[in-house]
């Protein structure tokens, strides 16, 4: 459905995307994961025909995005990161307009509009001006315009950025539902978001694809270290650190010096960060040690790796194997 062949895109001398190749089958749900400026948006802009690649090629449903741009664009629904909308139109007028631009006839639009409004749950706001809606509702309007013409390929650039947490959850579940019907590409810089929705992840870093895998494999590859945050009461920091360091899988123990922990320290709570090997059992061992020593366990939870650490790991991995 989507083919990228050695696609590169430079803005002037600045290479935004370098030699990216990927084939995405019909019905796949693919996440582009990468930090800001990694080249996710540029790749999407090439796929949607907004900007042509400098080198290589991209094709949607067999149509080259440059030479058969209109045919390629007919197969796409796209939501840019900034969620651009006409603020002075009502939701219905706007969706009708976008439908017409995508080549839908009046009858199709009339049938499709109530369905769309239902899918994105905009019922009570369908006659409101887009400019009066909150960011989260605008996001839904943005998604609605992307799916109104039932495109084969749906491309969503950072669809949950800048909206409040409750709406993030709703938007994610909405996107997950859409994944069933469309070939879906979604970009994000949040790993759990991608893992929750996508069956395949392309990790993009500095314009290159550094990993192309399913989320489970990817997190297995990434689990070469485990980090646990522990807070306990009823002992001195030195004693606790010494006891935990003894444990089998533990690599390193240090005090958590973040400012947020200082008030806790005043209340006699010791906050520690434990690095352990990813084998099973480190977390349980830490918990057991604390309880067996008669200390109070206040908090214990595994920390997910930060995105920076993930990219550091993936890029060093690539270099090592190259």
């Amino acid at each position, binding site marked *: 459905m989507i083919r990228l062949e050695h696609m590169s895109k430079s803005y002037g001398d600045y290479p935004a995307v370098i030699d990216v190749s990927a084939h995405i089958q019909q019905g796949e749900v693919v996440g582009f994961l990468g930090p800001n400026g990694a080249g996710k948006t540029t790749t999407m802009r090439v796929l949607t025909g907004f900007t042509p690649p400098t080198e290589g090629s991209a094709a949607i449903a067999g149509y080259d995005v440059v030479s058969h741009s*209109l045919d390629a664009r007919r197969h796409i629904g*796209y939501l840019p990161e900034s969620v*651009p909308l*006409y603020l*002075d139109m009502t939701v219905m007028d706007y969706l009708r*307009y976008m439908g*017409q631009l995508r080549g839908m006839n009046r009858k199709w639009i009339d049938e499709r509009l109530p369905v769309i409004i239902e899918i994105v749950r905009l019922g009570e706001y369908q006659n409101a001006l887009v400019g009066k809606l909150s960011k989260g509702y605008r996001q839904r309007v943005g998604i609605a315009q992307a799916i109104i013409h039932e495109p084969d390929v749906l491309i969503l650039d950072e669809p949950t950025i800048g909206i409040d947490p409750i709406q993030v959850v709703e938007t994610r579940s909405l996107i997950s539902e859409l994944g069933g019907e469309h070939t879906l590409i979604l970009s994000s810089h949040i790993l759990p978001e991608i893992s929750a929705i996508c069956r395949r992840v392309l990790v993009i870093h500095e314009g290159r694809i550094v990993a192309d895998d399913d989320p489970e494999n990817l997190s297995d590859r990434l689990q070469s270290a485990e980090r646990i945050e522990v807070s306990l009461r009823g002992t001195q920091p030195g004693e606790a650190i010494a006891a935990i360091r003894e444990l089998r899988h533990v690599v390193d123990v240090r005090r958590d010096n973040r400012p947020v922990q200082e008030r806790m320290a005043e209340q006699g709570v010791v906050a520690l960060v434990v690095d352990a090997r990813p084998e099973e059992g480190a977390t349980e061992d830490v918990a057991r040690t604390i309880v067996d020593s008669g200390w109070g366990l206040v908090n214990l939870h595994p920390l997910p790796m930060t995105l920076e650490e993930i990219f550091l790991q993936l890029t060093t991995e690539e270099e090592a194997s190259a």
Partner: protein
Amino acid sequence: MRNIQTIAWKEVKTYFASPMAYVVAASFLAITGFFFVASVSDPFSEASIRGYIAGAIFFMVFLSPALTMRLLAEEQKLGTLELLMTSPVREWEIVIGKFIAAFVMLALMVAGTFYFVVVLSWYGDPDIGPILTGYLGVLLYGSATLAIGLMASALSSNQLVSLVVGAGLLTALTVSNFVADRLTGTAEEIVSNFQLGSSFSVFDTSSFGVVEGGHFADFARGIISVTDIAYYISITAVFLFITVVLLESRRWR
């Protein structure tokens, strides 16, 4: 064709929903009304619409870019151009659609001045020939100014910049005779032939509203000249083409 219609209709509706079109139309009707009244108020004055026409073409230099400034600048500012350009719509369809919308507004505005003719016919016996050619000229001239304004709107995401660039270009084309006067030979001929229209006589109370110079002069006199029609249509076409190229070039940035 359907895309052009869709875009033009959407823009016309937006015009009616936003204050700018009303402000422009009200200014146009007030200004042209003033010059019309002034030109027919003298004793023994001629029963013609030349005062209206002179005022209309002079102030379109500012009012046309005010009408077009939002059309493409706003799309760039909001980012909606990205959605438009990733929809199966060609650049020239966007440009023509928006141009048609602006032209419809201009035509409605001009239609609002028909009562001048009614007033003239009621109190006098106007020569209908120059009135018809005058209206034809205003529409042709108007379309050229709108095309230039639309081009200015494609240049920037800032509406004010578009307005100033558009009005500046139109002013330059209006006063090109000042430059031509200081040139000789072929250069003079070329520059003077580029004059869009000149109606500084609107400010001259003795010759009130006689349009002199530029491609508009014949229309005001009741003459339809192929050269003038070709000139305005060419200007419109050339600037719409430049607008399309400007939009296409955005893809390569």
